């Protein structure tokens, strides 16, 4: 069953703007991770936030987690054309032996 839903499904912005992607999930989790995927390529790990954390930063990335609302957001600041990719959230459900359940993904297009 699908755990996460991402919003929006597609996002198009201009270089230099900020991009915000949201993810919702349904069960209790150990952590939530964000991955990036260029078209038809591998999944690159971006950032992990644990269930007891509320916010985390890594370079131009900022992730928030609200376990009461079962939602997370990924903010990419000062976007670049090279940020164009699909972004997936993935949750590690409690008691799941660490398997990841992915959201539907957001296709981000950054126009130069």
């Amino acid at each position, binding site marked *: 069953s*699908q755990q996460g839903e991402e919003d929006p499904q597609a996002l198009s912005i201009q270089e230099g703007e900020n991009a915000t992607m949201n993810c919702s999930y349904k069960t209790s989790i*150990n*952590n939530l*991770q964000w*991955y990036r995927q260029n078209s*038809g*390529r*591998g*999944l*690159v*790990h971006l950032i*992990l936030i*644990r269930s007891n954390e509320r916010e985390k930063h890594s370079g131009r990335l900022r992730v928030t987690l609200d376990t009461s609302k079962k939602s997370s957001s990924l903010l990419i600041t000062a976007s670049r054309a090279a940020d164009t990719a699909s972004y*997936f959230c*993935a949750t*590690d459900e409690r008691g*799941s*032996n*660490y*398997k*990841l*359940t*992915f*959201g*539907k*993904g957001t296709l981000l297009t950054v126009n130069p």
Partner: protein
Amino acid sequence: AAGVIQSPRHLIKEKRETATLKCYPIPRHDTVYWYQQGPGQDPQFLISFYEKMQSDKGSIPDRFSAQQFSDYHSELNMSSLELGDSALYFCASSLLTHTDTQYFGPGTRLTVL
């Protein structure tokens, strides 16, 4: 740094044929996961292994089987291939004591004709 290696990178098969996908985890990683990503879809968990034992099973068809070997590499065997099996197959590895982050390989693109 060494990454997860998958082979082959591309594979073309006919319906009803068999295929074997291989995964070599990051050195010292003891846990391997397999995921399937259909066209335009999100990755779906298939199966995982820890220390050569199956640790979890997802939506893996009975036509598929997998194992992890003593050197921790893993193989996904797919028989009686169907058109719907065409997808990207990812392997990921992690270290049990640091299971938080799974590192993904580049994937094997399987096309069934």
